[in-house]
């Protein structure tokens, strides 16, 4: 069992996507860590504009480093089917999601921002802090709500709450947001 962390796998994938101009953003706990209180995370979720294009880039740029897992799961929220790829040298798994037609999914992808990272890459694309909060509220699992609390606690005054509330009103999650804000 390898105890090498997933940074190498993520860095290789990001470099490949940059080379082949594949629009993407890192989502999930890695993106909430970027704005909140970092917690251990075993997996990496990446949204790509087109899955087919991402796989072409991987097959062309990193043919022997990543293998595709045939397992396909249906993700309930946006109705997309993520694909698991595995970084062969360390068995590290990355879940790739195709950008869905969901209004919020489209919006957060358009608003994504790039971060310079010494190990992961020069332009690592992640959602904005506001969009992380909105998406995590939407998932609504205990761990997601805890992540929202962490992001609010770290970013508190810099978050654009009027923007957040436009979406939470739409998703019916404003009460949850208020509860979390009041508890910080």
């Amino acid at each position, binding site marked *: 069992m390898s105890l090498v962390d*997933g940074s190498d796998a993520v860095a290789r994938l990001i470099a490949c996507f940059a080379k082949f101009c594949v629009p993407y953003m890192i989502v999930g706990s890695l993106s909430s860590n970027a704005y909140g209180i970092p917690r*251990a995370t*075993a997996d990496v979720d990446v949204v790509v504009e087109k899955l087919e294009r991402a796989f072409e880039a991987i097959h062309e740029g990193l043919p022997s480093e990543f293998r595709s897992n045939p397992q396909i799961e249906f993700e*309930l929220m946006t109705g997309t089917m993520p694909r698991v790829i595995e970084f062969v040298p360390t068995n590290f798994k990355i879940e790739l999601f195709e950008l869905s037609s969901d209004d919020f999914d489209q919006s957060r992808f358009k608003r994504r921002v790039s971060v310079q990272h010494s190990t992961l890459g020069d332009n690592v694309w*992640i959602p904005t802090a506001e969009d992380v909060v909105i998406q995590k509220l939407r998932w609504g699992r205990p761990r997601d709500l805890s992540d929202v609390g*962490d992001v609010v606690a770290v970013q508190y005054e810099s978050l654009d709450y009027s923007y957040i509330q436009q979406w939470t009103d739409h998703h019916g999650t404003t009460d949850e947001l208020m509860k979390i804000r009041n508890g910080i």
Partner: protein
Amino acid sequence: METQSLSTEIRRSKAAAARQMSVAQRLSAGLRLYTEQLCVVRGFVAGMNPDWTELQVDQEMDRRRRVIDLQNTKKYYRAAPEIPARQANQS
């Protein structure tokens, strides 16, 4: 109530520490923390089973990781209901 105020205080303290880190540092910290946790757990597994070979310890860690993977991939998301625009505007 006391427990809640303690947990709020802990979160505030952690948030203050997180604010000292850059976005880039926080972004990759989770991967590093996970690896460090694995190292600690591996040490416990080896310590509790001193007669095991390295391979047996690795196999036990792989088994535990599969169990966690299974739990993490369970899709039990609560779908937040969509509210029609007119209703959302009224509230």
